[in-house]
């Protein structure tokens, strides 16, 4: 027991607290922008896909390629490639603010693809019925497809939020702030293994909580 306490005595819990808040800010902030950009992109991918309402081979192939390109790029590489863009956008490439643009660029194609798949799962009969009732494209998407897909979209958001937790930790490599930054600076560079252990434990708890919260929301909005 005393050994256990000793092990953690050297940890600066205030630092851990700050880093946790930073991580939450990065995840939360980038999740908002990921949804803002990824949801419309996912909807367009869905609508222009084969045999869909706005089926358009060229547009779909182009967007699909773009999404695959970004998704196939290792996140660490994206972080580095994005540095000039990030500086131009938010004035810095480090800290919490500097981490958000690469996180958004990394997560948006991932989320968009999830959205596309969720929307494709919506029963075609529902789209057909809406068309038969004289719904416009906008009414079909916002009045029928998105409400029907809502639980699936919540699940996709949960998966994306969890992916963002691990991306955010990775951004510590280029000085992104948060728990990842702490783990690298103390746990790796200063050989304080216990800090690494605590950050990983906090990340685990964070992921677990996000998943539970997400599952609960999905359950709440599922009508079957």
């Amino acid at each position, binding site marked *: 027991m005393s050994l256990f306490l000793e092990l953690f005595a050297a940890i600066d819990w205030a630092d851990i607290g700050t880093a946790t808040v930073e991580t939450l800010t990065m995840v939360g902030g980038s999740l908002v922008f990921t949804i803002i950009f990824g949801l419309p992109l996912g909807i367009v991918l869905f609508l222009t896909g084969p045999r869909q309402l706005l089926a358009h081979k060229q547009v779909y192939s182009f967007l699909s390629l773009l999404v695959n390109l970004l998704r196939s790029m290792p996140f660490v590489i994206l972080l580095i490639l994005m540095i000039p863009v990030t500086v131009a956008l938010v004035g810095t490439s480090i800290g919490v603010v500097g981490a958000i643009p690469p996180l958004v660029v990394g997560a948006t194609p991932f989320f968009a693809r999830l959205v596309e798949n969720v929307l494709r799962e919506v*029963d075609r*009969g*529902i789209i057909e*019925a809406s068309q038969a009732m*004289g*719904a416009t494209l906008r009414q079909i998407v916002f009045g029928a497809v998105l409400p029907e897909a809502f639980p699936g979209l919540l699940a996709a958001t949960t998966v994306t939020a969890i992916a963002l937790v691990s991306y955010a930790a990775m951004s510590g490599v280029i000085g992104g702030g948060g728990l990842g930054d702490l783990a690298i600076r103390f746990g790796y560079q200063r050989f304080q293994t216990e800090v690494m252990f605590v950050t990983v434990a906090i990340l685990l708890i964070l992921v677990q909580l996000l998943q539970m919260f997400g599952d609960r929301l999905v359950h709440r*909005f599922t*009508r079957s």
Partner: protein
Amino acid sequence: MIDIEGVSKHYVVDGNPIPAISDINLRIEPGEVFGIIGASGAGKSTLIRTLNLLERPDAGRILVDGSDITAFSKEELLAYRRTTGMIFQHFNLLGAKTVGDNVRFPLKLTGKYTEAEMDARVDELLDLVELKDHRDKYPAQLSGGQKQRVGIARALANHPKLLLCDEATSALDPQTTQAILRLLRDINQRFGLTIVLITHEMDVIRAVCDRVAVLDKGRVAEHGLVTDVLLHPKHPVTRAMVRESSHHEESADLASTLGLSGLLLRVTFLGEITYQPVLERIAVKLGVSFSILEGVIGRIKDTPYGQLTVQVMGSAEDVERVEAAFAEQSIHCEVLGS
């Protein structure tokens, strides 16, 4: 009401054009219940979908009250669809919306009503389909029959003149099917609504339709009054369907099975005369006797009908006199051979 003129539609499967319907010509009268029957793959689903342009025909015109819907602008088409109801085999209700909101959906689409007007109309419609107590439930909590009632309420929301039914009872059990068909007949009579339905079940045609078209391989094999088509089918496909639905053997087969040598007649009664002792009267009057080999007595929509295969015991002259006696009462009588 609807004139279907030379309508064709094909699909491309693996680069090859596959015709779904070819040169369909039909006229659907206002206020009637028009049935389209055919085996799966006969093209009936494609045909009914051309009536609200869920499928756009490759060729031909569809005139509804004189205007060609295939030439409609986008806005005209939306307006037309809003006053054309459609119900589906798998109901296609919005699972995330309550029963009330499902019925409200088509009202909302028009953007013409206030919240209070929509509330009142939803109540009225749910009352009509006897689902008032289920307003706040979700479709997943309802039985198949109840879901189809919601579908019907939703289809009627914008006071349509035309209701399209796409295999509306095929996913339902027999009792529920009867109840839904009664409801369709009721709304047809009450609102003078024209109904076009497709089905693969002859019983559905028999129960609700005034006229029927039989579809085979994308073409109209025959069409006409249900009483004519069902009692005197001309096309082999129709004959097969009628026979199957009534579980009858072909009468020629019957004769050979029974080893009968006498004269076989098929007598068809239509209307109130079905319930009168016609055979007995003729037997007494002419001194012949009949042996009934097979037969059915029932109703086609509201019309009583009977169709009997009888063997006439008597001479050749007797048979002629029997035929004359039937003719005298305008009863259809067909000699099946001896």
